[in-house]
Every structure is written in C-alpha cells, then in structure tokens.
C-alpha cells in the first residue's frame, strides 16, 4: 500500500478513537469552562479606572461634570480633576505622578508623562468638545508628553508572551503525552506486531503524529477561537496589533509539535514493557521544561540580549521562545527565517532517526531498547 494511504488510515483512526474517548471530551469541556470562568472573573474583579487630570486655574465651570459624562462610556471610568496654579506646577505634579495627565486649555493640549493614554485622551477630548459645543471631526486637543515615549512592552504584550509560551509548553507536553501513551499502548499490548506486518514503521509514526497533531490543533483552535471571540466582544482588553503576535503562536505550535511529538514517539518506542507512558516520556518532558524555563529566564532578564537571540533560533527552544520574544520586543525577519529553517532541519533529522529506531524499539520487548543502543543501530544502518 502506498505510504500516504497507510498514514491517512492511521491518522484517522487516532482522531476517531480519541474523539470518542471521554478523556478528550472532558478535557475540551474543562478548558472551555475555565476560559468562561476566567472571563467572568475578569468582569467581576476588573477595577474601575480613575483618571487623575490636572487643569490650570481657573478651571472652566462644568469641566468636571463634562469629564465625568465623557468617561461613562469607557466602562464607567471615573475622572478626578485637580486644579493647579500654573502650567509649571501642573508639570511638576505630573512628574511626581500626582496626576496622570495635565490639561492646558489655553494651548488645547493634553500632556502625559511619558506614554499617551489613548482612553484618557479620548475622554478629555470629548469633555472639552462638549464644553465648547464643538462637534467632531476637528480634534479639540493635541497630546504631548513630558518625556519621549519609551518602547516598553505593554502589559498585554507581556501577557501574550508569557501566557502564550506557557500555553505552548503545556500543549506540547499534553499532546506529546497522547502520542507517547498511544505508542506505549500499541507496544505493550503487542498490536503493533500485527500493524507492522502490513504498514511501514515510518507511516505508522507519521499517522500517529499527524492524527494527534490535527486533533490537538483543532482543540487549540476551538479555544483560541473562543478567546478571540471574547476579545472582539470586549470581555478582555487588548490593544490592536496583538492579533499578529497571537497568530504567530499557531505556526510555531505546528513546528514545535512536529519536533516534540516525534521525540515523544521515539521515547515510547524505546520504553521497556514495565514502563508506563508517563515515566517513558519523562526525558522529553524534562527537556521541554528546561527549554521553557531557559526561555523564560532569558526573556525576563533581557529580551534583546544574546541569550534570548540564540534561544530564538536554536531549534529545540525556538518554538517556545520565538513567539514570546516576538510579542515582547519583536524579532527581525532574518531570525524568523533562520529559526524556521533550523527547526525544519531538526524535524527532518529527527524523523529520519525516528524512522530507524521506531521499529527496532517497538519490536524489542522486555527491557526496552536504550537510546544509546538505538543510536548505535541507527548509525550502523
């Protein structure tokens, strides 16, 4: 039979049987429920925002009320207005973080300390217009900052980077565990002998990895879809442009999964008959954990440092580190390309190696075949 047909059959069996399993349905429902609960919690604990605005004396009558009204559409935000003696006093207060913005009505200017808060600016703009009975589109206010704005990653980018890499790490380990438990089950109950009497080992391996990968991808897509829907519906706050960073997680899940799932499958094939899938998969899980923490440390200390750059392109770490670093500080295009090429090369090498040792490991019962022995045999071929 041609390999693609065998691979398709194996992959569709994996999908069919797993879709039927209670564990799969339960885990999907659980994750979706957690997402729903988290959205609810965000709503419940989301603090009301209060903008502190200073204005030079004398403040026009009705400004405080106009600001209050203008802030209402923004999730019932509050505005606290303070009157200062002069523009200089206002700048001092702004510098000392006594207020978030300084309104200079004479100059039609709204001054921030370092970064422009778009919401606060919109509130002030609307209030001033209302006060002057002006209508859009002419902006009533221009914005300015005391210091040049810093390109510091925003809170949302940090969230995407760390939550995203945690999610990637967990899903690689989670779906990798599916692969290994499937391999160990086939090996331990000997059904693999019947299958390998008709199917090439690499087609069995490919079918398993692709089937479980597609299912994992579908599960992640369902979750990501729901999360995206919640973003659109405004359940979570997120700045524009974050979509690209989130989208970057998807190809790297695919590449990372291909790499680590094959590693898990090989670990399963080499396991002894006494080992269960958890212990057999430990070496790969530990490697994944080490990669995750190395990436975390490198990015937390200096996302633009040498270590972070190296981990961005190193094949084992790239799937976790690159999307996170991309969200934090951006990754140059050449590093994207280099990382992709290196990961694909690593997948190719691993699949070749796996194709050789998979059958040997699977058909080698009892004590299990050590990685070193497997390597020796694979090299001898």
């Amino acid at each position: 039979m041609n390999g693609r047909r065998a691979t398709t059959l194996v992959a569709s069996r994996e999908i069919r049987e797993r879709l039927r399993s209670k564990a799969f349905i339960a885990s999907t429902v659980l994750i979706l429920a957690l997402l729903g609960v988290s959205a609810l919690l965000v709503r419940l604990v989301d603090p009301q925002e209060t903008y502190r605005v200073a204005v030079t004396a004398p403040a026009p009558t009705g400004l405080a009320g106009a600001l209050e009204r203008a802030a209402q559409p923004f999730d019932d935000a509050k505005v606290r207005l303070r009157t200062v003696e002069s523009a200089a006093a206002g700048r001092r207060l702004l510098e000392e973080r006594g207020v978030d913005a300084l309104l200079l009505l004479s100059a039609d200017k709204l001054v921030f300390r370092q970064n422009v808060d778009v919401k606060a600016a919109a509130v002030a703009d609307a209030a001033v217009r209302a006060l002057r009975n002006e209508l859009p589109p002419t902006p009533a206010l221009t914005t300015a900052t005391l210091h040049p704005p810093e390109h510091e990653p925003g809170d949302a980018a940090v969230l995407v980077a760390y939550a995203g890499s945690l999610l990637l790490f967990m899903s690689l380990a989670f779906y990798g565990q599916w692969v290994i438990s499937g391999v160990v089950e086939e090996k331990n109950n000997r059904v693999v002998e019947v299958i390998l009497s008709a199917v090439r080992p690499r087609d069995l391996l490919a079918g398993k990895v692709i089937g479980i990968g597609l299912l994992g991808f579908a599960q992640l897509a369902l979750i990501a879809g729901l999360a995206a829907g919640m973003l659109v519906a405004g359940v979570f706050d997120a700045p524009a442009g974050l979509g690209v960073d989130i989208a970057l997680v998807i190809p790297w899940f695919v590449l990372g999964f291909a790499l680590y799932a094959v590693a898990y499958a090989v670990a399963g094939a080499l396991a002894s008959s006494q080992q269960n899938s958890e212990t057999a998969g430990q070496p790969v899980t530990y490697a994944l954990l080490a990669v995750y923490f190395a990436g975390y440390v490198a990015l937390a200390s200096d996302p633009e440092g040498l270590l972070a750059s190296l981990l961005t392109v190193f094949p084992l770490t790239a799937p976790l580190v690159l999307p996170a670093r991309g969200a934090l500080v951006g990754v140059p295009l050449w590093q994207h390309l280099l990382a992709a090429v290196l990961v694909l090369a690593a997948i190719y090498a691993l699949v070749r190696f796996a194709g050789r040792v998979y059958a040997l490991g699977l058909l080698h019962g009892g004590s299990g075949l050590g990685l070193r022995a497997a390597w020796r045999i694979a090299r001898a071929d």
Partner: protein
Amino acid sequence: MLGIEGVRKRFGPVEALAGCSFSLERGRMLGFLGPNGAGKTTAMRGIFGLVELDGGDVLWDGRPVGEEERLRFGYMPEERGLYPRMRVAEQLAYFGRLHGLEADTARAAAFDWLQRLGLADRADAKVEELSHGNQQRAQLAAALVHTPDLLVLDEPFAGLDPVAVRTLADVLRDEAARGAAVLFSSHQLDLVEEICEEVVIIDHGSIVAEGELDALRRASARRRIALQLEGAPSDWLPDVAGVELLARRNGTLRLAVGRDVDPKHVLAAAERVASVVEFRYGPPTLDELFLELVAR
C-alpha cells in the same frame, strides 16, 4: 509459493536461525514444529520483516517479499494484541483497510468473519469486554479479514478449549481449500498430524526434517510395535536384537525397533510365551518422530 531460503539470524551469542530453507505451496497447510527457543517465531517474524534477517531470502512466487506482498499476507503473532478499547467490527475493518481493502469491502469482510466465528452479536463490543476465547477469535479474524494468500499463525491453538480448537482447525482447512498457503506453529502434535499434510521441524535454528508427514514418518530409521499380551510374565521382553522398550502398561508393551528388524520375529517370540491379543507395527507417530529428531 512461499520460499524460505537460507535465512540466518543471530541475537548476540544465540544463533536463532542458522540457514533455514523450506517452501510452502498455495492450498497447502504446513505445521511448523520445534521445541521452545528453536527459532520458529523468529522465522515467522522474518517473513513479515519484523526481525531484520542477517542473511537469506524470503520469497513469494520467486520474488523477494516486500511491502506489496506483505499486504496479501495475514499474521497472527504469538503474543496476541488488539486495541483493547476499539470496537471489534471496526477494528477488523481497520486491519482490512490497512491491508488495502476499500472501506465497504473491509466492513463486509469483518462482519462475515464475525458471523463465521460466532461473534456477530459482539460486533460493537470493545475488545477488552470480550472473554479470552472470544479475543482469540477476534485475533484470528484480524489475520483473515483481507483474504490473505499466505496465512502465518504463531501457536494459534495455544490456550483454546477443545471446541475452539475444532473451529480453528476447520477454518484453517477451509483457508487452505480456498487456495491460501497456511503456515502455523504448534506443540499439539496430534492435532498437526490430523490436519497437516506437511511439516517442518526446526531445532537450534536448523531444519531437521521437512516434507510430507507420511513420507517423513516412513523415512524414520525406527518403527513402532504395540503388543497386547495375555499371560506373559510381567517382565517379559522379546529376545530379538535391536528392540527397545518404550512403555509397559496393563499387559501392553510399546516397543521401538530398527527399520531392519523383521516384526515377524518379535511376533513369533511373543507367541512363544503368551497369547497375542493385538499386534501393531508401523512408522513412528509425529510425536515419536519429533522426540527422535530433537532429542537433547
């Protein structure tokens, strides 16, 4: 036709196959015999590429066996294995499809075999819910579902009750009658003697006998005599050179003699001391032949 030609396999210090050759025609049933550890399972796995042979050839109709050929083979390994949580009929259809059947054909074949093996009412049960005997039947069906040209079964009768042994023997006979080449290993030599035309006996990785069962028995250098006497002394033995006592029970003696010993001399010696109730002379049974050939 299956041709095994000079296959060799060494596991470290152990020579599992030391250059074995034998062949099997379509429509024939071959019993593959040998003591434990003789190399039977290694040879059968070699046919399916499940062990990498160190040398020799496995041929089907004169051509080396590859992936395409193996799709037309059916295998029942010694260590049974099916997916425990997969439904029986679906699992059989899956194996059929892995062997190249289309979905509809595979499903129909799966139901045919379940019907035939008395498992039709369990088609939607998971394999782990089946009794041990029914799991064995499902395993057999998995090897047969794609109507293979060559059927290789490793110890298919082990652990079966007498009724199941009968069913399996009938199935194997039918498969051979359909035109399949059937190769199976077994320690149940009386059964092999009953259903096989041919046997191969392997010991220490080498073939020690191969061919038509009757011819092999006749070719033995020894003959068997069963002698039932009345009134003979309890320790009597015929005074003929080359006679060996195998067993004595309730006046019945079982003797082994060389092929050149004339049985009439034994009969005459017996008639001199007692009245002979029964006298049988013939080649050894498969069981006796086996013990002769693989005596350690």
